[in-house]
């Protein structure tokens, strides 16, 4: 899985790596443009290899079950983390479940 920016390029077959470098979409995956600028909890982040919400959570080392995610004010249902693509400039808010009193 191309989850974290640091391991981009690793774990791919050479065909996939070549396709990636040429910007050719890999079947079953959305094309990644490499670096993407996002605003996450108000902070500008430049991230590599982020395609979906799931990738972002993975690269931030957050467990999907423990957070709620908003992209441009829209709450993303958990079962759509893997299919929701992020785009340059998206504003993402991630809040943790906090239940104590």
């Amino acid at each position, binding site marked *: 899985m191309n989850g974290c920016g640091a391991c981009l390029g690793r774990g791919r077959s050479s065909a996939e790596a070549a396709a990636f470098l040429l910007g050719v979409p890999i079947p079953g995956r959305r094309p990644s443009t490499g670096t993407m600028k996002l605003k996450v909890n*108000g902070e500008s982040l430049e991230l590599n290899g982020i395609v979906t919400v799931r990738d972002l959570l993975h690269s931030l080392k957050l*467990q999907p079950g423990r957070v709620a995610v908003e992209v441009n004010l*829209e*709450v993303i249902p*958990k079962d759509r983390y893997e299919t929701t693509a992020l785009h340059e400039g998206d504003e993402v808010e991630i809040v*943790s479940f*906090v*239940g104590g*009193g």
Partner: protein
Amino acid sequence: MRFTEEQIRRYSRHIILPEVGGKGQERLLASRALLIGAGGLGSPAAYYLAAAGIGTLGIVDFDDVDLSNLQRQILHRTDDVGRPKVESAREALQALNPDVRVIPYKEQLTSANILELLAEHDVVVDGSDNFPTRYLVNDACVIAGKPNVYGSVFRFEGQVTVFQPGQGPCYRCLYPEPPPPGLVPSCQEAGVLGVLPGVIGLVQAIETVKVLLKIGEPLIGRLLTFDALGLRFRELKLRRDPACPLCGEAPTITQLIDYEEFCAVGP
């Protein structure tokens, strides 16, 4: 209602505020707030709401006072260890302000009793310590149309908002379902900085007074998060989710759910 001489003195700093005034103070004295929990959040919230002259404070808490509570639950004293929290809360609040009628409910909040309790109160202050109760309170408030002044804490982090049915989102618009059992530790398991619920509980008290007086801009549709270590507040805009399973356009949750207590929730 006519104020006594003593009341005019007690509430004078409210009465001289144009936004409150004699009318507002009368309204507060006639108001009924239901506190869910007399713990870390409920303690500071109840203390200030009593001081402010909220006429009726219902307090739901099933627990007895434990020594480990006293690091943050300021309604209770060392001598109260082992007593029901609602009893020590009542004593502390009435000693502070005899104008306030404190109604103790030493019971588990369930789908069987919550709507009845809500019917007798104007606003809910959720300071509970577990997810099953938070979802129950949220769902019941949406069904009953009561404002829910929500606060929660964990380690060094707090969250606070106002869920006002019909005017903004509900808890499920943000978190549609409870976290999987065991995934999110409780304060008992993970700890909480003792002063932190003071900050969050008092923001809840402020919002409760504003909701009752209908003044200012309550935290409706805004989740305020507080990071005690970085000493930062952040505000997250919340929108009502049309697909919300509870308050959305095609709700799938139409009755109250008693989720199972899935992690140890201590005193």
